[in-house]
């Protein structure tokens, strides 16, 4: 197990370096000059060139990358060009807020998908099943930005006290929680649509298994058969897949944060891209990568604990 852990941990390093290199190159190859973006159209060419030199943008691209990598290994991800502040400070200010949104959306996904999927499966081909299946298809087909605007127009406007946008403070306060409702629904419901379908088909498979038939033949109540025997076996793969979708939710927050003016990493990243704020894009992308890699890492470890054959492969 230890050697597997070491191998798996070491495999993260090339991924991080690879992603950082790709992000670095793609930003540099995109047209646009951060110095001009910062200084604006009124600034003279001399001032623009001076700033380019100050930022080290006049050096060859691989020299720039090696400097960035060297600093990154020391924990210094550079200073945001547009915000005039350390990128780590900016990212750490926002990462918690995006995580907050992601976790709330994940809870909604979990709650809706499991409930709807199970009900739909045990009432297969009923009207409830048709409604749930159709609803799931509806939610997963909706573009996030459109869904957000519809929630805003149809829910926030009609329900007194439901905020339209912004963050109302800490997650643990009432104001903070109510501000989370619409963005979390917007982010969580399309995912819930997908997982409702997965839960339903998983549950249907399990219900056909011999041990379920055995349980029923033993005269157990249907409720016990479903909750004790079928549900447990359905949940394992579904929850694992959901956990693997957490990074997707984290990334999906980019649009939701813009629509709902949520001050998280997504908005930080989008504005940084438009401003050609290279260090900030680099730092934000690195954090996103870390989240994805870490989620996969945890899933792999969990699998290897559950199934030792994976370690041997």
């Amino acid at each position: 197990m230890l050697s597997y852990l070491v191998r798996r941990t070491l495999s993260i390093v090339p991924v991080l370096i690879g992603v950082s290199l790709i992000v670095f190159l793609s930003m540099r190859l995109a047209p646009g000059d951060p110095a001009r973006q910062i200084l604006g159209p009124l600034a003279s060419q001399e001032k623009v060139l001076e700033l380019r030199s100050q930022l080290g943008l006049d050096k060859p691209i691989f020299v720039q990358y090696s400097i960035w990598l060297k600093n990154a290994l020391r924990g210094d991800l550079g200073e945001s060009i547009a915000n005039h502040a350390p990128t780590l400070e900016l990212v750490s200010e926002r990462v918690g807020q995006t995580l907050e949104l992601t976790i709330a959306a994940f809870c909604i996904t979990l709650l809706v998908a499991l409930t709807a999927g199970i009900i739909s499966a045990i009432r297969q081909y009923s009207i409830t099943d048709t409604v749930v299946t159709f609803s799931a298809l509806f939610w997963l087909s909706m573009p996030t930005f459109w869904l957000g605007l519809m929630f805003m127009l149809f829910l926030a406007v009609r329900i007194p006290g439901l905020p339209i946008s912004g963050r109302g403070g800490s997650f643990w306060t009432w104001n903070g929680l109510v501000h989370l409702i619409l963005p979390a629904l917007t982010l969580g419901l399309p995912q819930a649509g997908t997982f409702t379908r997965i839960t339903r088909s998983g549950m249907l498979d399990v219900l056909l298994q011999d041990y379920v038939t055995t349980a029923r033949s033993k005269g157990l109540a249907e409720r016990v058969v479903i909750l004790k025997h079928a549900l447990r076996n359905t949940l394992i793969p579904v929850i694992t897949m959901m956990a693997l979708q957490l990074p997707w939710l984290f990334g999906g927050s980019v649009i939701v944060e813009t629509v709902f003016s949520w001050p998280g990493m997504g908005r930080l990243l989008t504005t940084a891209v438009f401003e050609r704020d290279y260090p900030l894009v680099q730092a934000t992308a690195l954090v996103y990568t870390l989240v994805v890699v870490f989620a996969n890492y945890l899933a792999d470890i969990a699998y290897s604990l559950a199934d030792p054959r994976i370690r041997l492969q």
Partner: protein
Amino acid sequence: MNFKKFLITGALILAVFGFTVSVSAQQQGGTLTMALKEKLDTLDVFTSALYEPLYVLGLVCETLVIYDENMEIQPLLAKSWSVSVDQLTWTFKLKEGINFHDGTPFNAETLKDYLWNWFFPKSFGGWEFEPVKELVVVGEYTLNFVLEQPYSMLLTYLGDPWNIIQSPAAYEKHGERYGFDALVGTGPFMFDSWVRGDRIILKKNPDYTHGPAFLSNQGPAYLDEIVFRIVPEAITRVSELRYGDVDLIRTVPENMLANLQEDTNIETLLKPSFRVVFISCNMDRSIMQDKRVREAINHAVDRQAVLNATFSGYGTVASSLLPPSATGYWSGSEEFAKSILTYDPDKARTLLDEAGWGLPPGETVREKNGQKLNLNLVAMNVPRYSLPAEIVTAMLADIGIAVNLEIFDAAAVNARLEASEFDFTVTGWSYNIGEVTLDMIVGSPSIPNPNYARYDSPAIDRALETVRLGATAEERVTASAAVQRMVVEDQIVIPLVVRSDSIAVKGHVGGIDEVKKHPWWLDLVLALELYVK
């Protein structure tokens, strides 16, 4: 007076007096929340490249002089001014008893320190004061601007809302953190806090009493607090205004304006904008060097259709590179442009025929010596430029010009325009000081950015020199008119439309009638006149 009359008179006096007291008491206090569309990079005017910080800066910091609604310059931090006979020394008497929010006294010494050591060398607008040779403190509240040559633009630039006066001590104290942790001016509101990406909070300056005489309230402000929330999505801003906790939004997207105007709980205010949308033809390209091709483009474009489609009809068709609301606008522009900036597709076709770009039978694109008339149009991915660009593309197709339209984000567009990788662009400019706009867009020293057209005209450059450094206002006005006339004639930069600007407020916000009287520059007006009913 009998007893009955006495009672009636007394009751009337009490009613009137009581009503007055209750109205003014109602005006005091409260919080006003404004939504801003863009994130703020910094509140340091020396380093910010964005327009949005100005909405905050304009409430916290002030200029020496200020424009009133008639575009006349009025005192603000300066009490009065005079100019010597040789026009080389301007004497400014400053208002007394004013302190910066950090307690630093505002006087001739601190003003000199700020201007000489901070503003002139660091500000983007520092070049506007190049003719200032020396600042001389004559008395505690008297400062002389000694010039190298007569410079009548001095007062105009001192009234430019970008050229604010801030505490030199605060700059010294906060260093690079100025604009993030601190913003210190003399205005009616004081910087309180900034939660990055979310909100900025300003608190009332209770000691403020030196507001401009042309406003009904010279201070302190009625409001206790102003909160700026960052709401990037237009529809979210409008929804927040109608149903949420935002009280005021600025520059309402035109396609949502009509709805807001119908909403009885919302009051809207249309005001002149400084933004002109125009076509810039790249003079590096041989096709564009032929004036007949540029004229054909000009005549092929229906400006009213562009205005309707892009700005829902709000605004006006442009007749100059400057909007009528900017300083230096030539009042004869409209009359002059009437016969030049016209929509006449037949004339456009004739001009192309004359230029040798014929339309082969059965073809839709013109040709000359086997070369097709394909033009590359680059525009930014914001509706104010991308929509007109799409309309221009369709209109040019109608006269046989095939346009390859490329839409990018701001950084990519800047790079393409700067590198001359385009034939023409639909772009725009927004600046309240028209003389600066002329310098930037058509002056040859601004090639390639923002003079993307590579407009290199010695006649224009000479006139611009007079606009900049003319000794008298009359000289400058004449030169500015000449530049605007030449621009319309040359059709290298072809004006299309002038956008209108707007503000929308919730019904419970009072004072908007006072605001409507002063539409030119609103920040200080909003700060002093608005209240919560």
